[in-house]
Protein backbone atom coordinates (compact mmCIF):
# COMPACT_ATOMS: atom_id res chain seq x y z
CA UNK A 1 0.00 0.00 0.00
CA UNK A 2 3.01 2.22 -0.53
CA UNK A 3 1.45 4.00 -3.51
CA UNK A 4 -1.48 5.41 -1.55
CA UNK A 5 -1.63 7.91 1.28
CA UNK A 6 -4.45 8.93 3.61
CA UNK A 7 -4.75 12.61 4.53
CA UNK A 8 -3.71 12.93 8.18
CA UNK A 9 -6.32 15.64 8.78
CA UNK A 10 -9.43 14.19 7.10
CA UNK A 11 -8.54 10.56 6.23
CA UNK A 12 -9.32 10.71 2.49
CA UNK A 13 -7.19 8.29 0.43
CA UNK A 14 -5.08 9.66 -2.41
CA UNK A 15 -2.87 7.94 -4.94
CA UNK A 16 0.74 9.12 -4.67
CA UNK A 17 1.95 10.67 -7.91
CA UNK A 18 5.38 12.06 -8.73
CA UNK A 19 5.45 15.82 -8.26
CA UNK A 20 7.18 18.51 -10.29
CA UNK A 21 10.17 20.08 -8.54
CA UNK A 22 9.48 21.84 -5.24
CA UNK A 23 5.69 21.42 -5.46
CA UNK A 24 3.39 20.13 -2.76
CA UNK A 25 0.45 17.76 -3.02
CA UNK A 26 -2.65 18.95 -1.17
CA UNK A 27 -5.66 17.01 0.03
CA UNK A 28 -8.62 17.62 -2.30
CA UNK A 29 -11.09 17.67 0.58
CA UNK A 30 -9.47 19.66 3.39
CA UNK A 31 -6.44 21.22 1.71
CA UNK A 32 -3.81 19.82 4.08
CA UNK A 33 -0.34 19.22 2.65
CA UNK A 34 0.00 15.51 1.91
CA UNK A 35 3.62 15.42 0.80
CA UNK A 36 6.17 17.65 -0.89
CA UNK A 37 8.82 17.21 -3.50
CA UNK A 38 12.09 17.84 -1.70
CA UNK A 39 15.17 17.71 -3.94
CA UNK A 40 18.30 16.12 -2.44
CA UNK A 41 16.55 15.76 0.89
CA UNK A 42 19.16 13.50 2.50
CA UNK A 43 22.14 15.63 1.53
CA UNK A 44 20.54 18.93 2.42
CA UNK A 45 19.22 17.79 5.78
CA UNK A 46 22.62 16.32 6.63
CA UNK A 47 24.39 19.55 5.71
CA UNK A 48 22.04 21.63 7.83
CA UNK A 49 22.29 19.21 10.74
CA UNK A 50 26.11 19.44 10.71
CA UNK A 51 26.03 23.23 10.44
CA UNK A 52 23.43 23.37 13.20
CA UNK A 53 25.55 21.24 15.51
CA UNK A 54 28.55 23.55 15.12
CA UNK A 55 26.42 26.66 15.67
CA UNK A 56 24.75 25.00 18.65
CA UNK A 57 28.11 24.39 20.33
CA UNK A 58 29.19 27.98 19.64
CA UNK A 59 25.89 29.41 20.84
CA UNK A 60 26.08 27.58 24.14
CA UNK A 61 29.78 28.10 24.84
CA UNK A 62 29.79 31.90 24.95
CA UNK A 63 27.59 34.51 26.64
CA UNK A 64 24.76 35.81 24.45
CA UNK A 65 23.96 38.95 26.38
CA UNK A 66 25.77 41.21 28.83
CA UNK A 67 24.56 44.00 31.06
CA UNK A 68 26.64 46.95 32.23
CA UNK A 69 25.62 49.20 35.11
CA UNK A 70 28.35 51.56 36.25
CA UNK A 71 31.45 49.44 36.38
CA UNK A 72 29.59 46.20 36.94
CA UNK A 73 29.32 43.87 33.97
CA UNK A 74 27.22 40.74 34.05
CA UNK A 75 27.11 38.28 31.19
CA UNK A 76 25.00 35.21 30.75
CA UNK A 77 25.02 32.05 28.69
CA UNK A 78 21.86 30.05 28.20
CA UNK A 79 23.00 27.36 30.63
CA UNK A 80 23.87 29.79 33.44
CA UNK A 81 20.48 31.47 32.99
CA UNK A 82 18.72 28.15 33.38
CA UNK A 83 20.91 27.30 36.38
CA UNK A 84 20.00 30.63 37.98
CA UNK A 85 16.28 29.81 37.68
CA UNK A 86 16.89 26.36 39.14
CA UNK A 87 18.75 27.77 42.15
CA UNK A 88 15.92 30.24 42.79
CA UNK A 89 13.51 27.36 43.28
CA UNK A 90 11.91 27.55 39.82
CA UNK A 91 12.92 23.98 38.97
CA UNK A 92 9.92 23.28 36.73
CA UNK A 93 10.47 26.37 34.60
CA UNK A 94 14.21 25.69 34.46
CA UNK A 95 13.56 22.17 33.16
CA UNK A 96 11.04 23.46 30.63
CA UNK A 97 13.50 26.03 29.27
CA UNK A 98 16.32 23.46 29.23
CA UNK A 99 14.18 21.03 27.24
CA UNK A 100 12.82 23.49 24.69
CA UNK A 101 16.00 25.43 23.94
CA UNK A 102 18.85 22.98 24.59
CA UNK A 103 17.95 19.30 24.84
CA UNK A 104 15.31 19.01 22.11
CA UNK A 105 17.23 20.87 19.35
CA UNK A 106 20.41 19.00 20.31
CA UNK A 107 18.89 15.50 20.28
CA UNK A 108 17.01 16.36 17.10
CA UNK A 109 20.25 17.16 15.28
CA UNK A 110 22.12 14.15 16.71
CA UNK A 111 19.33 11.70 15.89
CA UNK A 112 18.97 12.99 12.33
CA UNK A 113 22.72 12.64 11.81
CA UNK A 114 22.53 9.13 13.23
CA UNK A 115 19.76 8.18 10.79
CA UNK A 116 20.67 10.08 7.63
CA UNK A 117 24.43 9.60 7.53
CA UNK A 118 24.22 5.79 7.15
CA UNK A 119 21.27 6.15 4.72
CA UNK A 120 23.38 8.43 2.55
CA UNK A 121 25.96 5.64 2.26
CA UNK A 122 23.30 2.98 1.62
CA UNK A 123 23.40 1.42 5.06
CA UNK A 124 20.62 1.08 7.59
CA UNK A 125 21.22 2.44 11.10
CA UNK A 126 20.21 0.19 13.97
CA UNK A 127 16.79 0.86 15.50
CA UNK A 128 15.91 3.33 12.73
CA UNK A 129 12.11 3.25 13.30
CA UNK A 130 12.41 3.84 17.02
CA UNK A 131 14.91 6.71 16.68
CA UNK A 132 13.02 8.36 13.83
CA UNK A 133 9.69 8.13 15.64
CA UNK A 134 11.36 9.68 18.68
CA UNK A 135 12.69 12.59 16.59
CA UNK A 136 9.27 13.27 15.12
CA UNK A 137 7.66 13.17 18.53
CA UNK A 138 10.02 15.61 20.27
CA UNK A 139 10.17 17.95 17.26
CA UNK A 140 7.30 20.30 18.25
CA UNK A 141 9.00 20.96 21.60
CA UNK A 142 12.07 22.61 20.13
CA UNK A 143 11.53 26.36 20.42
CA UNK A 144 14.72 28.12 19.38
CA UNK A 145 12.87 30.68 17.25
CA UNK A 146 10.56 31.60 20.11
CA UNK A 147 13.60 32.00 22.33
CA UNK A 148 14.99 34.54 19.85
CA UNK A 149 11.86 36.68 20.22
CA UNK A 150 12.37 36.33 23.98
CA UNK A 151 15.87 37.78 23.61
CA UNK A 152 14.49 40.73 21.62
CA UNK A 153 11.79 41.50 24.18
CA UNK A 154 14.34 41.32 27.03
CA UNK A 155 16.63 43.69 25.13
CA UNK A 156 13.91 46.30 24.96
CA UNK A 157 12.94 45.73 28.59
CA UNK A 158 16.50 46.23 29.79
CA UNK A 159 17.42 49.04 27.40
CA UNK A 160 16.20 51.71 29.80
CA UNK A 161 17.92 50.18 32.82
CA UNK A 162 21.46 49.60 31.73
CA UNK A 163 23.88 49.37 28.86
CA UNK A 164 23.42 46.17 26.88
CA UNK A 165 26.37 44.33 25.41
CA UNK A 166 25.43 41.84 22.69
CA UNK A 167 27.44 38.68 23.29
CA UNK A 168 29.43 36.65 20.79
CA UNK A 169 26.95 33.82 20.71
CA UNK A 170 23.96 36.05 19.92
CA UNK A 171 24.86 35.79 16.24
CA UNK A 172 25.30 32.03 16.42
CA UNK A 173 21.82 31.83 17.96
CA UNK A 174 20.41 33.87 15.11
CA UNK A 175 22.09 31.67 12.48
CA UNK A 176 21.09 28.51 14.36
CA UNK A 177 17.41 29.38 14.10
CA UNK A 178 17.54 29.61 10.31
CA UNK A 179 19.66 26.49 10.00
CA UNK A 180 17.31 24.47 12.24
CA UNK A 181 14.27 25.66 10.30
CA UNK A 182 15.98 24.76 7.01
CA UNK A 183 16.93 21.35 8.40
CA UNK A 184 13.34 20.56 9.31
CA UNK A 185 11.95 21.85 6.01
CA UNK A 186 14.39 19.85 3.89
CA UNK A 187 13.77 16.59 5.75
CA UNK A 188 11.55 14.26 3.73
CA UNK A 189 10.22 11.76 6.25
CA UNK A 190 8.27 9.84 3.59
CA UNK A 191 11.58 9.16 1.86
CA UNK A 192 13.19 7.85 5.06
CA UNK A 193 10.26 5.49 5.73
CA UNK A 194 10.22 4.43 2.10
CA UNK A 195 13.92 3.48 2.16
CA UNK A 196 13.39 1.60 5.42
CA UNK A 197 10.37 -0.23 3.99
CA UNK A 198 12.23 -1.25 0.83
CA UNK A 199 15.15 -2.70 2.76
CA UNK A 200 13.26 -4.86 5.20
Amino acid at each position, binding site marked *: MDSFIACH*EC*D*VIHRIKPLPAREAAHCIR*CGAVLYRHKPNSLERTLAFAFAGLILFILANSFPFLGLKIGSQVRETTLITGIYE*LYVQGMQLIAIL*VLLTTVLVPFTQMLCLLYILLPLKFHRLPKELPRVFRFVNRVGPWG*MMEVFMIGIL*VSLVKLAGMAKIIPGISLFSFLALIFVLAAMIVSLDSHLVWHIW*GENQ
Partner: protein
Amino acid sequence: MNRDLTTAQAAGLISCHSCHLLCQRTQRSADKICPRCGAALHDRKPNSIARTWALVLAAFIFYIPANVLPITTVISLGKAQSDTIMSGVIYFIHSGMWPIALVIFLASVFIPLLKLLILIFLLISVQRKSTWRQQDRTRLYRITEIIGRWSMVDIFVVTILVALVHLGGLATIHAGPGAVFFGAVVVITMFAAMSFDPRLIWDTEEAIYE
Protein backbone atom coordinates in the same frame (compact mmCIF):
# COMPACT_ATOMS: atom_id res chain seq x y z
CA MET B 1 -19.04 17.26 -0.99
CA ASN B 2 -17.61 14.90 -3.59
CA ARG B 3 -19.04 11.40 -3.54
CA ASP B 4 -15.95 9.69 -5.03
CA LEU B 5 -13.89 10.35 -1.93
CA THR B 6 -13.02 7.30 0.12
CA THR B 7 -11.59 7.55 3.57
CA ALA B 8 -9.13 5.05 4.94
CA GLN B 9 -11.62 4.17 7.65
CA ALA B 10 -14.40 3.40 5.14
CA ALA B 11 -11.97 1.26 3.10
CA GLY B 12 -11.05 -0.83 6.13
CA LEU B 13 -7.58 0.68 6.31
CA ILE B 14 -5.64 2.45 9.02
CA SER B 15 -3.14 5.16 8.23
CA CYS B 16 -0.09 4.79 10.49
CA HIS B 17 0.23 8.08 12.38
CA SER B 18 3.99 7.79 12.40
CA CYS B 19 5.05 6.69 8.89
CA HIS B 20 1.73 7.16 7.03
CA LEU B 21 1.68 3.61 5.68
CA LEU B 22 -1.84 2.38 4.96
CA CYS B 23 -2.37 -0.86 6.86
CA GLN B 24 -5.20 -3.41 6.74
CA ARG B 25 -7.53 -3.26 9.70
CA THR B 26 -7.89 -6.70 11.27
CA GLN B 27 -9.37 -7.99 14.49
CA ARG B 28 -6.22 -9.72 15.73
CA SER B 29 -4.44 -7.65 18.37
CA ALA B 30 -1.01 -8.67 17.02
CA ASP B 31 -1.79 -6.67 13.90
CA LYS B 32 -2.36 -3.43 15.78
CA ILE B 33 1.26 -2.51 15.10
CA CYS B 34 2.45 -0.91 11.87
CA PRO B 35 4.39 -3.55 9.88
CA ARG B 36 6.80 -0.92 8.57
CA CYS B 37 7.71 1.31 11.51
CA GLY B 38 6.38 -0.56 14.54
CA ALA B 39 4.15 2.24 15.87
CA ALA B 40 0.83 1.34 17.46
CA LEU B 41 -2.03 1.66 14.97
CA HIS B 42 -5.15 3.64 15.78
CA ASP B 43 -8.14 4.39 13.61
CA ARG B 44 -8.41 7.77 15.30
CA LYS B 45 -6.36 9.21 18.14
CA PRO B 46 -7.49 7.25 21.22
CA ASN B 47 -10.09 8.99 23.41
CA SER B 48 -9.40 12.17 21.51
CA ILE B 49 -12.46 14.12 22.67
CA ALA B 50 -12.28 13.17 26.35
CA ARG B 51 -8.54 13.81 26.54
CA THR B 52 -8.76 17.16 24.80
CA TRP B 53 -11.63 18.27 27.05
CA ALA B 54 -9.67 17.29 30.16
CA LEU B 55 -6.57 19.15 29.03
CA VAL B 56 -8.53 22.23 27.94
CA LEU B 57 -10.27 22.44 31.33
CA ALA B 58 -6.96 21.97 33.16
CA ALA B 59 -5.41 24.73 31.07
CA PHE B 60 -8.34 27.05 31.86
CA ILE B 61 -7.88 26.47 35.58
CA PHE B 62 -4.15 27.18 35.38
CA TYR B 63 -4.80 30.23 33.20
CA ILE B 64 -6.26 32.07 36.20
CA PRO B 65 -3.27 31.91 38.61
CA ALA B 66 -1.00 32.44 35.61
CA ASN B 67 -2.58 35.85 35.10
CA VAL B 68 -3.27 36.81 38.72
CA LEU B 69 0.02 35.83 40.37
CA PRO B 70 3.21 37.80 39.68
CA ILE B 71 5.56 36.33 37.11
CA THR B 72 8.51 38.52 38.10
CA THR B 73 9.54 40.35 41.25
CA VAL B 74 12.08 43.17 40.95
CA ILE B 75 14.00 43.91 44.13
CA SER B 76 15.64 47.30 43.73
CA LEU B 77 17.39 49.08 46.63
CA GLY B 78 15.48 47.04 49.17
CA LYS B 79 12.08 47.70 47.56
CA ALA B 80 10.21 44.81 45.99
CA GLN B 81 7.87 45.28 43.06
CA SER B 82 5.86 42.41 41.61
CA ASP B 83 4.58 42.28 38.06
CA THR B 84 1.87 40.13 36.56
CA ILE B 85 1.66 39.56 32.82
CA MET B 86 -0.97 42.28 32.41
CA SER B 87 0.82 44.85 34.56
CA GLY B 88 3.90 44.30 32.43
CA VAL B 89 1.86 45.02 29.31
CA ILE B 90 0.37 48.16 30.86
CA TYR B 91 3.83 49.33 31.93
CA PHE B 92 5.02 49.09 28.33
CA ILE B 93 2.01 50.98 27.00
CA HIS B 94 2.64 53.79 29.51
CA SER B 95 6.29 54.02 28.60
CA GLY B 96 5.36 54.33 24.92
CA MET B 97 6.74 50.98 23.79
CA TRP B 98 3.50 49.72 22.39
CA PRO B 99 5.02 47.25 19.85
CA ILE B 100 6.56 45.29 22.74
CA ALA B 101 3.33 45.63 24.72
CA LEU B 102 1.49 44.17 21.74
CA VAL B 103 3.92 41.25 21.38
CA ILE B 104 3.60 40.31 25.05
CA PHE B 105 -0.17 40.76 25.07
CA LEU B 106 -0.61 38.62 21.96
CA ALA B 107 1.79 35.89 23.03
CA SER B 108 0.86 35.63 26.70
CA VAL B 109 -2.78 36.65 27.02
CA PHE B 110 -4.48 36.50 23.65
CA ILE B 111 -2.99 33.37 22.01
CA PRO B 112 -3.51 30.95 24.95
CA LEU B 113 -7.09 32.14 25.37
CA LEU B 114 -7.81 32.07 21.65
CA LYS B 115 -6.36 28.59 21.42
CA LEU B 116 -8.52 27.29 24.26
CA LEU B 117 -11.66 28.88 22.82
CA ILE B 118 -10.99 27.42 19.35
CA LEU B 119 -10.45 23.96 20.84
CA ILE B 120 -13.70 24.21 22.81
CA PHE B 121 -15.53 25.32 19.67
CA LEU B 122 -14.05 22.39 17.71
CA LEU B 123 -14.89 19.91 20.48
CA ILE B 124 -18.50 21.05 20.75
CA SER B 125 -19.01 21.14 16.98
CA VAL B 126 -17.56 17.62 16.66
CA GLN B 127 -19.74 16.32 19.46
CA ARG B 128 -22.81 17.84 17.78
CA LYS B 129 -21.72 16.10 14.54
CA SER B 130 -21.83 19.44 12.78
CA THR B 131 -21.17 19.56 9.03
CA TRP B 132 -20.79 23.33 9.05
CA ARG B 133 -17.73 24.64 7.14
CA GLN B 134 -15.56 21.61 7.78
CA GLN B 135 -12.70 22.91 5.68
CA ASP B 136 -12.52 26.15 7.67
CA ARG B 137 -12.71 24.27 10.96
CA THR B 138 -9.80 22.07 9.86
CA ARG B 139 -7.92 25.26 9.04
CA LEU B 140 -8.69 26.63 12.52
CA TYR B 141 -7.22 23.47 14.01
CA ARG B 142 -4.09 23.88 11.90
CA ILE B 143 -3.71 27.43 13.25
CA THR B 144 -4.02 26.37 16.91
CA GLU B 145 -1.34 23.76 16.35
CA ILE B 146 1.07 26.33 14.94
CA ILE B 147 0.58 29.34 17.21
CA GLY B 148 0.69 27.58 20.59
CA ARG B 149 4.46 27.50 20.87
CA TRP B 150 4.78 31.29 20.60
CA SER B 151 3.26 31.71 24.05
CA MET B 152 6.57 30.54 25.49
CA VAL B 153 8.08 33.99 24.82
CA ASP B 154 7.31 35.28 28.30
CA ILE B 155 8.92 32.28 29.98
CA PHE B 156 12.10 32.90 27.99
CA VAL B 157 12.04 36.61 28.83
CA VAL B 158 11.79 35.78 32.53
CA THR B 159 14.73 33.35 32.21
CA ILE B 160 16.92 35.98 30.53
CA LEU B 161 15.97 38.74 33.01
CA VAL B 162 16.60 36.52 36.01
CA ALA B 163 20.00 35.55 34.64
CA LEU B 164 21.10 39.06 33.73
CA VAL B 165 19.70 41.36 36.40
CA HIS B 166 21.62 40.21 39.39
CA LEU B 167 23.44 43.28 40.60
CA GLY B 168 23.97 42.65 44.27
CA GLY B 169 22.17 45.25 46.39
CA LEU B 170 21.28 47.42 43.39
CA ALA B 171 18.69 45.26 41.70
CA THR B 172 17.75 41.62 41.29
CA ILE B 173 14.87 39.96 39.50
CA HIS B 174 13.21 36.81 40.76
CA ALA B 175 10.76 34.61 38.90
CA GLY B 176 7.32 34.55 40.54
CA PRO B 177 4.83 31.71 41.03
CA GLY B 178 2.75 32.96 38.08
CA ALA B 179 5.55 31.85 35.75
CA VAL B 180 5.14 28.21 36.79
CA PHE B 181 1.39 28.30 36.13
CA PHE B 182 1.93 30.11 32.87
CA GLY B 183 4.46 27.49 31.74
CA ALA B 184 1.91 24.83 32.65
CA VAL B 185 -0.76 26.56 30.53
CA VAL B 186 1.52 26.58 27.48
CA VAL B 187 2.53 22.93 27.87
CA ILE B 188 -1.01 21.72 28.58
CA THR B 189 -2.56 23.60 25.65
CA MET B 190 0.11 22.13 23.35
CA PHE B 191 -0.80 18.65 24.56
CA ALA B 192 -4.50 19.49 24.15
CA ALA B 193 -3.98 20.50 20.51
CA MET B 194 -1.96 17.34 19.88
CA SER B 195 -4.61 15.07 21.36
CA PHE B 196 -7.42 16.49 19.22
CA ASP B 197 -7.97 14.51 16.04
CA PRO B 198 -9.01 16.75 13.10
CA ARG B 199 -10.35 13.71 11.24
CA LEU B 200 -13.26 13.72 13.68
CA ILE B 201 -14.42 16.95 12.03
CA TRP B 202 -14.97 14.97 8.83
CA ASP B 203 -16.28 11.74 10.30
CA THR B 204 -19.86 13.04 10.14
CA GLU B 205 -19.63 13.02 6.37
CA GLU B 206 -19.36 9.25 6.02
CA ALA B 207 -22.34 8.79 8.24
CA ILE B 208 -24.36 10.76 5.72
CA TYR B 209 -23.11 9.13 2.52
CA GLU B 210 -22.94 5.55 3.70
